[in-house]
C-alpha cells in the first residue's frame, strides 16, 4: 500500500504551525536595519487641483526625512505603457504623485517619511495642503443614459457574445415573462492585512521589496518600468499574504511610494496604508442590471436578456465579465447580452473575488427564481428543465460538467423536498422561514507557469515557483503534488514561493493557481524523476536497467517497475551511491491548446440557503447553507472545504451586509472602516455543508483540477435573496438586504 499518495486527501496545512504561532512573516514584518517609515496623505476632495503643499513646515521637524509630492518627485517614466501592469484595463493608469490634479477622493497626494512611524504619522497630520475644488460626479444613477461599450479591456475580458436567435420577439411571445432591475453598491475587498511594503535598500540602487501582492513578477515588471530599474536591481518577495481577494492583483500605490522613498533617500523604507486608505485601492463596482426572461408552456426558457452597467474611473475602463455567464448556464436559443460602463470621479474598480460573475450571478439567479414563480414551477425543477449540456456561447461541449449531480446531492442534503412553494408558507421558532437556491459557473483556466525541483543526497526535495500564498493553501497543495510525484512523505518536501528569484508563475488569481502552478510542479518533479531513473540505471546491479520512464513509478520512497514492484531501489540509496550532492530540474507548463480547443472548460456549483426572518424587526438570520461544487479533482479536502466555507460567507456578506456607501456631496466613501463596512462575524455564521462532486477531466490539465477559490461564492448571494423572498413574499432587488428593506 502506498503511503505517498497525498492528492485528494486532507492533510493539515504545511504552513499551519507558522501561521498559528505568529512566525509567518507578512510584508510589513521584515525588520531590516535602519528602517524609515512612510505615511501617506490622502486627498479630501474628489476633483480639483492641489494649489500648494506646505511641505517645508513639516520637513523642519527633527526626524522627518522628506515629504514627497508632485512638487518634488523626480522624473519617472513618461509613457503610460511603463505604468501598465499585466492586468491593467484600457486607459491611462493612475500615476501617484505625478501631477497636481485630483481625480478621486482619497487620492494619495503626499508621502511623509520619518525615522519612526509615530513621527511620520504626526508630520502627515500636520501637513497643510491647499486645494481648488471642482464639481464632481460619483452617482451612477446620473449616468444611466451615458453608458458606453468598452474597447478591448484588460486581459481576460471577453465582450458578451453577439445575440442569438430572436430574443426580443421570443420574449414578447413567451407564455410567461419577467423583467426586473437589480442593483448593488460598491464593495471593498478588505483583506485583514493592510497594504504594506517594506523596501530594503541594498546599496548601489538595488532594492528588495517585501510587498503585499498577488503577483511578485507583476510588481517587479511595474517597478522596472516606472523607475527605470534593471532586472537585477529589484527583487520582489511575498511569502505570506494576509488575504487578497483580488486587491493585490495590480501593484498598489503603497509599493510605488515605498520604492520611490527608498531610491531617493537611499535607505530602507516601510509604507503601510491605513484601513481607511484600503478603500482607495479598487473595489467591486456599483452595478445596475436588467434581466428579462420568458418561458415556453413546458417551462423551458424562450428568451433571456441580461444587461449590465457599472462604474469606472475617468482614467481607466475597468472591465469584468458580468453577463456572459447568462448565455451559458442555461439552455436558451434566444439570448441577448449587453454590457456598458460609465465614468465617474472615483478610483478604478478592481477585480474582487469572482469578479463579474458574483455581480451577474445575482441578476441571473434572482431572475431565475422570479421566472420560476411566474411560470408556477419549483425553482430547482425550473433549472433542471433548462439544464445546458453545451456551452451555447461558444457552441462547444463542456470538458466536464456535473452540475446536475450538484443539484441532486445538494438538494438531498439540504432537504429541499420539504420546501413548500408558496411564499410565507413556512414558519419556525415564531419566525418566517424561507428556502432559496442559486447556482453558478466559473472559468477553469490554466496559465503558463514554471517550477524548479531539487533533491539533495539525503532525499529531501525542494520545489520552487514564484506563485503566492494568500490563504488558498498553495504551500500545502504544491507540497502534496510534489511529494506524490516523487513518492515521498510530505515531511520530505519543502515548497518555496513568492520570490522573483524563483521560476516565473502567473499572478495568483482567477482560481488558476492549482491548475497552472500545480502542473508546472508536477512537470518539474517528473523531469527530476527522469534524472533519478538515469542515475539508478547507471548502477551496476540496477533492477531497473532498460526501463523507460513510463514503466517506473515513485512510491513510498522507492523507484520501482510499475508491473513488478519487487524490482525496486530506494531513492535515497540511489542518490547517495551516485556521489551527487544535489540533482535539479526545471520545467514549465502551458495549456494543451490542441486538446482543449474543442471544449468549454468550467467549474459549477449550487447553493441552497435557509433563512429565518423576524417579521416585526425585519432581521434576517441565515440558518443553513449547503454548497455543492463540481470543480474537477479536489487536491486537499481540508483546504478546499475551507475555501468553499469562506466563499459561502462572502456570499452571505454580499447578500446581507456589504456596501461601501458614497456620500455624493463629498464624493467620498463614508463607511470606510470595519465598524461601518460590515463583514460577517462568527455569530453570523450558519451551519454550512460543503459537498464536492468529483469530475474526471483530463482536458483541463493533467491534474484534472479546475480551481475553487471563486466558484463557491456564486449562487450563495442569490440563494439567500431568494430565501428571503420565500420567507416574506418581498422581492428585494437591491443588495444588501438590510432590515429596513423588509419593513
Amino acid at each position: 500500500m502506498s503511503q505517498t499518495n497525498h492528492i485528494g486527501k486532507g492533510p493539515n496545512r504545511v504552513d499551519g504551525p507558522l501561521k498559528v504561532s505568529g512566525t509567518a512573516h507578512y510584508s510589513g514584518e521584515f525588520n531590516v536595519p535602519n528602517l524609515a517609515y512612510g505615511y501617506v496623505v490622502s486627498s479630501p476632495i474628489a476633483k480639483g487641483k492641489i494649489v500648494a503643499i506646505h511641505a517645508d513646515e513639516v520637513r523642519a521637524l527633527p526626524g522627518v526625512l522628506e515629504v514627497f509630492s508632485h512638487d518634488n518627485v523626480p522624473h519617472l517614466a513618461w509613457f503610460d505603457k511603463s505604468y501598465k501592469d499585466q492586468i491593467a484595463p484600457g486607459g491611462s493608469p493612475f500615476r501617484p504623485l505625478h501631477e497636481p490634479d485630483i481625480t478621486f477622493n482619497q487620492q494619495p497626494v503626499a508621502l511623509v517619511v520619518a525615522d519612526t512611524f509615530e513621527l511620520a504619522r504626526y508630520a502627515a497630520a500636520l501637513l497643510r495642503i491647499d486645494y481648488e475644488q471642482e464639481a464632481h460626479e460619483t452617482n451612477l444613477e446620473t449616468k444611466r443614459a451615458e453608458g458606453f461599450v468598452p474597447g478591448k479591456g484588460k486581459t481576460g475580458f471577453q465582450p458578451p457574445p453577439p445575440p442569438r436567435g430572436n430574443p426580443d420577439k421570443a420574449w414578447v411571445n413567451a407564455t410567461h415573462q419577467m423583467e426586473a432591475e437589480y442593483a448593488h453598491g460598491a464593495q471593498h475587498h478588505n483583506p485583514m492585512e493592510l497594504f504594506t511594503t517594506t523596501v530594503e535598500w541594498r546599496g548601489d540602487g538595488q532594492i528588495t521589496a517585501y510587498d503585499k501582492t498577488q503577483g511578485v513578477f507583476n510588481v517587479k515588471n511595474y517597478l522596472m518600468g516606472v523607475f527605470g530599474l534593471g532586472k537585477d536591481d529589484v527583487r520582489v518577495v511575498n511569502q505570506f499574504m494576509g488575504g487578497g481577494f483580488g486587491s493585490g492583483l495590480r501593484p498598489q500605490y503603497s509599493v510605488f511610494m515605498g520604492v520611490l522613498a527608498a531610491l531617493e533617500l537611499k535607505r530602507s523604507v516601510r509604507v503601510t496604508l491605513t484601513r481607511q486608505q484600503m478603500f482607495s485601492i479598487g473595489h467591486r463596482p456599483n452595478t445596475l442590471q436588467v434581466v428579462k426572461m420568458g418561458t415556453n408552456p413546458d417551462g423551458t426558457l424562450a428568451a433571456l436578456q441580461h444587461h449590465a452597467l457599472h462604474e469606472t474611473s475617468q482614467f481607466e475602463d475597468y472591465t469584468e465579465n458580468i453577463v456572459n455567464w447568462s448565455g451559458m448556464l442555461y439552455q436558451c436559443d434566444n439570448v441577448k447580452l449587453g454590457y456598458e460602463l460609465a465614468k465617474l470621479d472615483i478610483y478604478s474598480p478592481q477585480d474582487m473575488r469572482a469578479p463579474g460573475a458574483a455581480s451577474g450571478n445575482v441578476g441571473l439567479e434572482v431572475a431565475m427564481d422570479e421566472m420560476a414563480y411566474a411560470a408556477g414551477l419549483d425553482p430547482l425543477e425550473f433549472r433542471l428543465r433548462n439544464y445546458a449540456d453545451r456551452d451555447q456561447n461558444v457552441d462547444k461541449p463542456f470538458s466536464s460538467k456535473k452540475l446536475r449531480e450538484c443539484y441532486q446531492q445538494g438538494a438531498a442534503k439540504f432537504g429541499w423536498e420539504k420546501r413548500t412553494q408558496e411564499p410565507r408558507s413556512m414558519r419556525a421558532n415564531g419566525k418566517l422561514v424561507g428556502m432559496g437556491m442559486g447556482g453558478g459557473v466559473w472559468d477553469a483556466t490554466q496559465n503558463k507557469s514554471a517550477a524548479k525541483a531539487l533533491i539533495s543526497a539525503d532525499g529531501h526535495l525542494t520545489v520552487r515557483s514564484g506563485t503566492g500564498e494568500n490563504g488558498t493553501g498553495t504551500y500545502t497543495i504544491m507540497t502534496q503534488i510534489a511529494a506524490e510525484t516523487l513518492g515521498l512523505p510530505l515531511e520530505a518536501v519543502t515548497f518555496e514561493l513568492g520570490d522573483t528569484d524563483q521560476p516565473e508563475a502567473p499572478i495568483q488569481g482567477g482560481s488558476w493557481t492549482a491548475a497552472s502552478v500545480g502542473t508546472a510542479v508536477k512537470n518539474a518533479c517528473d523531469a527530476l524523476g527522469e534524472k533519478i531513473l538515469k542515475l539508478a540505471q547507471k548502477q551496476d546491479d540496477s533492477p531497473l536497467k532498460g526501463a523507460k520512464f513510463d514503466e517506473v513509478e515513485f512510491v513510498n520512497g522507492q523507484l520501482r517497475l510499475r508491473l513488478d514492484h519487487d524490482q525496486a531501489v530506494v531513492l535515497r540509496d540511489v542518490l547517495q551511491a551516485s556521489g551527487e550532492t544535489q540533482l535539479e530540474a526545471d520545467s514549465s507548463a502551458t495549456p494543451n491548446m490542441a486538446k482543449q480547443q474543442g471544449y468549454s472548460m468550467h467549474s459549477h456549483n449550487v447553493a441552497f440557503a435557509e433563512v429565518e426572518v423576524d417579521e416585526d424587526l425585519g432581521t434576517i438570520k441565515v440558518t443553513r447553507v449547503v454548497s455543492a461544487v463540481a470543480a474537477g479533482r479536489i487536491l486537499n479536502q481540508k483546504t478546499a472545504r475551507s475555501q468553499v466555507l469562506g466563499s459561502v460567507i462572502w456570499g452571505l456578506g454580499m447578500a446581507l451586509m456589504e456596501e461601501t456607501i458614497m456620500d455624493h456631496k463629498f464624493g467620498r466613501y463614508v463607511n470606510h472602516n470595519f465598524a461601518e463596512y460590515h463583514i460577517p462575524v462568527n455569530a453570523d455564521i450558519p451551519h454550512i455543508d460543503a459537498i464536492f462532486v468529483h469530475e474526471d477531466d483530463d482536458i483541463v490539465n493533467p491534474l484534472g483540477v479546475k480551481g475553487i477559490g471563486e466558484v463557491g461564492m456564486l449562487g450563495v448571494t442569490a440563494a439567500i435573496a431568494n430565501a428571503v423572498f420565500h420567507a416574506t413574499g418581498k422581492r428585494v432587488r437591491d443588495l444588501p438586504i438590510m432590515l429596513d428593506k423588509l419593513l
Partner: protein
Amino acid sequence: MSQPLTSTPYTGGVPAPVPTGPVRLHINGETRTLQLAPWTSLLDALREYAHLTGTKKGCDHGQCGACTVLVNGLRINSCLTLAVMHEDDDITTIEGLGTPENLSPLQQAFVDHDAFQCGYCTPGQICSAQGLLNEGRAHSEAEIKELMSGNLCRCGAYVGILDAVKEVVDKESSDVGA
C-alpha cells in the same frame, strides 16, 4: 466653478513632536526596555520596536481584533492602548503561547480544524480564544460564537475557529470535571 479649500497656517510654527523616553515592558516573561514616544500604541511597540510581529495590525481602531494580546490574562486590543500604560503589566503575545515546534493546545486545534486561511487574523483569534478560556465563560457553541465575534476573519474561517475553540473548551471542562 472651482472653490478654494485652503488650510489655516500655524501660529508660532509647527508644534514639535513629544520626545521619546524609555518604557519597560514585561512581554512573554521577558523584560524589554524600549525607547518610545508616549503616543506609541502597545501594538506598534510590539511590532516595530520589540519586533514581535505575531501581533497584527488590521485597522488600528479597535474594530477588527487582529491585534488582540493578553494583558494580565485578559484579552485587549493592543491598538487601543498606549505602551506607556503597561509598565507594570504582564503582556502575553502569540509568541508567548507556543512555538511552531511546541504549539499550545489552542494553536494545535487551529491547525487541525483548518481554522484559518491567510493566517493574518489568526494570532488575534488565538489570543482572544485563550482569553475566553481564562474567563471561563464560554460553554455552548452560541456563547463561543458571540464571544469570538470581536475578531474578524475576512477569509471566513469561522466554522473552523468555532470547532477549534470548542474542542479545547470541552477538553478543559472535562479535565476540570475529572
